[in-house]
């Protein structure tokens, strides 16, 4: 650089240089802004403390260990009204995660299909998909959630209708599934030689039961998949070397199926069917109408955005790629799955992350249909019964922040693993 902007040679440091010297100016501005910002935060915190003290409500999180006193309909773990607010919040958190995970999976599946279909050369299909995307993208998700719930409540029969000699409603799918306006009752997997549960964290509020049956099943199943993949790789290697691919599909199927089925048989696997008992169906798994409404609405809504992202990702891949692929003799479907989608993924994943985050955060609208997620428990009933607004909101923010950061971290890791490796 020239000496022109270097005043050190012409004289010592002057205070005015903090503003007039381009080397210091930006730093000065940043420091002033930072001080201003910190002062504002400090004032807010101080003022909050002062006001709460005036109201006689010093911030305290002690209420989390007091008895909750209310019941939660959807419980993934054991819970009674004598448990603490912390446990109620924990159950709410699990419900949030449940609907978020289910929603992300279905939204992705629907989104990818719609996004691809919208590029179809078939006029009707592509128009239909465009209609779907615009419908869902342009109406607030809260309305979809409420609509889904209202449709379910009003259009499906109540359990009462299944009763009597000549019932107005009957169970579907060979008497195994009951669609009611309280939700859908589906058969549940049960084990007659169950290995029981492992109890984690003793009797604390975060106690957690894990089914040993499930663990054993998963270990065997995933182990089978891994072995099957190894066999596949070996077959590939043989094919590369000799040009002949050995037939391995039946071995691959067997290493997954045989151990899995054996384990299921040993554990005495059977299905428990729902059955009308008293006021409600008993047995089976009850997917509540609130869960279904929330799940459906969130999935369909987010899928509309994902579809657009997928479409944009595909359009971003140059046409030459398709032409080159067909010149090599690939059929259109294989061109899509082998050439276009893998490249498009790199464009798709970053915006996909933010849609997963949106879905998770939108799940806090659950209270509109009475789904007891963490906003419904900690940010709803607990907050209301204890009057601890500030504490509950802070905890909620912390929880959503942690969930979001975790999703981002996982997805970023995945993004790095598929991104273009420059050699």
């Amino acid at each position, binding site marked *: 650089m020239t000496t022109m902007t270097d005043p050190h040679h012409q004289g010592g440091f002057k205070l005015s240089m903090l503003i007039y010297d381009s080397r210091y100016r930006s730093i000065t501005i940043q420091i002033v802004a930072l001080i201003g910002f910190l002062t504002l935060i400090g*004032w*807010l*915190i*101080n*003022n*909050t403390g*002062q*006001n*709460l003290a*005036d*109201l*006689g*409500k010093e911030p305290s999180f002690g209420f989390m260990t007091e008895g909750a*006193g*209310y*019941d*939660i*309909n959807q419980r993934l773990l054991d819970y*009674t*009204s*004598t448990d603490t607010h912390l446990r109620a919040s924990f159950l709410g958190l699990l419900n949030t995660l449940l609907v978020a995970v289910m929603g992300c999976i279905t939204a992705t599946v629907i989104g990818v299909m719609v996004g691809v279909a919208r590029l179809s050369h078939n006029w009707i299909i592509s128009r239909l998909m465009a209609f779907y995307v615009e419908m869902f993208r342009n109406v607030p998700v809260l309305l979809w959630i409420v609509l889904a719930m*209202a449709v379910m*409540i*009003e259009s499906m*029969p*109540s*359990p*009462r*209708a299944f009763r009597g000699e000549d019932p107005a409603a009957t169970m579907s799918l060979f008497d195994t599934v009951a669609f009611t*306006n*309280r939700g859908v009752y589906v058969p549940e997997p049960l084990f007659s030689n169950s290995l029981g549960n492992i109890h984690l964290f003793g009797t604390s509020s975060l106690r957690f039961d894990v089914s040993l049956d499930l663990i054993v099943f998963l270990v065997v199943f995933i182990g089978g998949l891994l072995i099957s993949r190894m066999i596949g790789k070996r077959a590939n290697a043989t094919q590369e070397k000799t040009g002949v691919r050995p037939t391995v599909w039946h071995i691959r199927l067997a290493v997954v199926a045989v151990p899995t089925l054996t384990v299921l048989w040993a554990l005495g696997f059977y299905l428990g069917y729902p059955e009308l*008992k*008293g*006021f*409600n169906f*008993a047995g089976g798994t009850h997917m509540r*109408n609130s869960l279904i409404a929330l799940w459906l609405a969130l999935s369909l809504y987010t899928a509309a955005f994902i579809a657009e992202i997928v479409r944009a990702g595909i359009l971003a891949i140059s046409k030459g790629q398709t032409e080159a692929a067909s010149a090599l003799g690939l059929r259109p479907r294989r061109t899509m799955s082998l050439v276009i989608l893998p490249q498009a993924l790199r464009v798709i994943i970053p915006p996909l992350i933010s849609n997963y985050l949106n879905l998770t955060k939108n799940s806090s609208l659950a*209270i509109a249909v*009475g789904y*007891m997620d963490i906003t*419904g428990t900690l940010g*709803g*009933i607990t907050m*209301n*019964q*204890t*009057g601890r*607004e*500030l504490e509950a*909101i802070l905890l909620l923010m912390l929880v959503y922040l942690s969930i979001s950061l975790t999703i981002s971290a996982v997805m970023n890791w995945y993004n790095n693993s598929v991104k273009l490796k420059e050699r």
Partner: protein
Amino acid sequence: MIAPKLMHADEGQPPSLKSSRPQEPEENARNRAENQEEVIMKKTVFLGALTVAGLAAGASAAATLDDVKARGKLNCGVATGVPGFAAPDANGRWEGFDVSVCRAVAAAVLGDSDAVEFVPTTGKTRFTALSSGEIDMLARNTTWTLSRDVDLKFTFVGVNYYDGQGFMVPKDLGVSSAKELDGATVCIQTGTTTELNLAEFFRANNMSYEPVPIETQAEALQQYNAGACDVYTTDASGLAAARSTFEDPTSSVILPEIISKEPLGPLVRHGDNEWGDIVRWTLNALIAAEEFGITSTNIGELSAAAGDNPEVNRLLGTEGNLGEMLGLDAGWAKAAIMSGGNYGEVFEKNIGENTPIGLARGLNAQWRDGGLIYSPPFR
């Protein structure tokens, strides 16, 4: 106090969100009430959080009476729609047993029973609305409990309806006692004492149930009528009000068990005792008026000049300076009573036996008639 000017969280709100404009068809009025509810619900939660976060500071310590006078309007929290207790009528004018308390206070303080901004609140939003200063008082079927008083820091100024929690089921369910409800799906309003009582009742009787948490009475009834829940539970008065809206009220029965005590009454924030006194004695004035036979028809005559009963004279301001002590005009109680009549008149007009709600006085009769309604002396 820091930033005392910022504390009127409601000042910046466009008035159209909250005011109920008269002369509109019923349909619109209903819809608007629902929209209001949603807007206010969200607003309240956010404002509530903000309030505590310090932007809207120290609402409790301010002189509410001065604020109300300066504003020219009383902000009164009511239910979102419980016929007989608080609901907009066909013209969008709020009417009901709880609404009358708001109107009486507005009449006592401002001399105009229509100078009220009715703020519909749900079970969840009502307390945040009150503690954030969005409303000056709450009259919304709210049960007086120790923790609401001591921990949530609210002053219950009295009881305007002695109630208890009951259950309502469709008649064709064939249930005749709450003890037969094992396994039932129960609709409840969240943020209420109802959901806590319910949990205790079912636990104590070793029964299970499936709670369906809901925000407002209207949503609860939608689910109840569609059979998405078997039972609706809330205060017995609320059940009677709900049943009166059914096409065929006899299709549902209210079970005999009353599982709790629910003394319902108006409340204010802690920290402004003068304001609490005004609301308390306005309610007492309505109650005393019934005891002394002061009605909306004879009040003009009785207040024209001092009569033989010194307590009536003090109440109506023809003798003594009770109004001055409260910081109000001498005619405060007269205005309050004239706004809708004495306690008994308000009861008969809104929820009494000749209304669709059809509630008997029962516990809510005057103490002389064997009830619990009793006003301390005006002296």
